């Protein structure tokens, strides 16, 4: 997280730390599912085999402590079928679910986050929180950090991408957040974590996006997998849970 601050215990109790092809993030859904980005499991420009271990840690804001709290074994990995690992500039479908072998016991430091149910969670300017154990500019993070970012206007992000002559895919299954004028952003190691918005009506925190990609860090907008478009898939994968 660039330009953010250290989170206190219990601020983001859904936050998971993953260690697959490097540091990554995730969010707890229910009591035995981890929502993450597909590219943390199958990174772009990488061998398509998932032949490395998948370690998942939960329940703490300190990297050293969270690792001490033991790894949660994975029963099943589910990658969204639209995800294309070999298309370097296409992060469409960048979503995955990890089913834990055992349910976790919820508590003040370990709680699931909700899923969105309408488009209002993507209104321009709506402030959300992005948390993660990813890098802070050029420094590695030892603690969970977060940054508060606004949902950006889609046209602004498209224009910004055009100006940079990028051919990256900005699909309808993504949204962008941040502001080029601010030195605040998610960064490497935050992928898989969620963009969380507090719903004032229900007083619940809702994950609206998954940290997916960006061009550098804190020099523009960040791009997120738009979770509303994947709620049906998530529900199908999680079954009745």
């Amino acid at each position: 997280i660039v330009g953010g601050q250290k989170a206190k215990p219990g601020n983001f109790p859904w936050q998971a730390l993953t260690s697959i092809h490097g540091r990554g993030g995730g969010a707890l859904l229910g009591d035995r599912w981890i929502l993450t980005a597909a590219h943390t499991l199958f990174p772009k420009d990488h061998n398509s085999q998932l032949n490395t271990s998948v370690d998942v840690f939960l329940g703490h804001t300190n990297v050293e402590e969270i690792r001490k709290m033991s790894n949660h074994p994975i029963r099943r990995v589910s990658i969204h079928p639209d995800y294309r690992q070999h298309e370097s500039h296409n992060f469409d479908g960048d979503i995955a679910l990890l089913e834990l072998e055992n349910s976790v016991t919820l508590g003040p430091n370990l709680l699931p986050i909700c899923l969105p149910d309408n488009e209002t969670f993507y209104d321009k300017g709506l402030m959300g929180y992005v948390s993660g154990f990813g890098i802070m500019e050029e420094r590695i993070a030892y603690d969970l950090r977060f940054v508060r970012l606004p949902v950006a206007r889609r046209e602004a992000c498209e224009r910004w991408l055009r100006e940079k002559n990028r051919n990256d895919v900005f699909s309808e299954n993504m949204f962008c957040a941040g502001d080029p004028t601010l030195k605040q952003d998610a960064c490497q190691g935050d992928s898989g974590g969620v963009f969380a918005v507090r719903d004032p009506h229900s007083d619940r925190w809702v994950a609206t996006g998954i940290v997916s990609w960006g061009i550098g860090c804190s020099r523009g907008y960040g791009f997120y997998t738009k979770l509303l478009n994947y709620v049906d898939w998530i529900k199908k994968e999680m079954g009745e849970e």
Partner: protein
Amino acid sequence: SINIPQKLFGEVTSPLYPKPYPNNFEATTVISVPVGHRVKLVFWHFDVEPSEGCFYDYVKIAADKKSLGRFCGQQDSPLGNPPGRREFVSQGNKMLLTFHTDFSNEENGTVMFYKGFLAYYHAVDLDECAPQPANSVDDAPQPRCQHLCHNYIGGYFCSCHPGYALQKDKHSCQAECSSRLYTEPSGYISSLEYPQPYPPNLQCNYSIRVERGLTLHLKFLEPFEIDDHQQVRCPYDQLQIYANGKMLGEFCGTQKPPDLDTSSNAADLLFFTDESGDSRGWKLRYTTEIIKCPQPKALDEFTIIQDLQSQYQFRDYFIVNCKQGYQLVEGTKALLSFTAVCQDDGTWHRAMPRCKIKDCGQPKDLPNGDFHYTTATGVNTYQAQIQYQCREPYYKMYTRAGISEATRGTFTCTAQGIWKNEQEGEKIPRCLPVCGKPVHPVQQQQR
């Protein structure tokens, strides 16, 4: 002698008959008929030289080692001793007819010719059952059979009065009472010849066997009389009574035994007599009564005896249930049902069970939740109640629309011994994770 082949009838004649018989002749004809018959002989023609005392010529008839007469002369003539139409009958199956002639047949110097005789015999059935003549003057006539004699043509046979068996000599009768069996529900049994003196040397066994579930009562009648001795108990004759493998008593004398309740459907009476005595014996009436079992009685207030009867007899049964919420137990074993049957010995085949309050056991643990007793803590018996709760605020109980968590979480120990919820039955509630409700959400004071 001349033996005539054994026949049922025939003729006997003098030699040369009807021509004059020869002089100086003597022959004895042995007439025999089959055994079991006697010989009846009649002279149809008789013409033998008459003489005083039938001294010269004569016909002599004998049977059974006795002479039946000596005969001479002519039929219907006063001279000599003609047999006339007389029938000669033997006792046995043989008759001897001797014909004797002397050297001449003259009368006043004139030679006379006599034709001789023609006799006819036939077998007559011997009534062997008729009283036999005494062997001597002092002896009474000896019957052929000790009890009953049955004559038939050519023979006879003996039989015995009921209770006696014909012996090998086919004449005498021996009391037979070694295996008398009585199976009717009531009846009389008595010593042989009662009330006349019983026979000697008896070894009688009277067995009474009635249906299971009946009990036998014995009642002796007057007179009761079995040889006894003043100093020694029942030394001569004795009546022993057994039931249930035990001797109920040994009786003799003239004092009638008391009425006996055998408490059994089987009894045996053994009656032994010695070689002498003159007592009149005994007689009893046996009756039966159906066996009853004790009235079933509940051991606790929760036991229900179905359709309680005023009395129970052999093969009757009763069924026991428990009041709602109680469980039948036999010892430590729980029963699904209970039936007890009245046995033939008047006991129930199973002891009365008890009814124990149903125990639902420890309630199931609720994952991510807990329960507490709304009735007495730790008591899991019928009508106990618990309330399940989820560990809030992290979990929330899943409920169907319109059902409160309190209702869904209330479980009662039912009469079936199962914890049940009114709406969902045995299924315990689920505690679902609560999403998006951090206890310590991020807060930023600086503006």
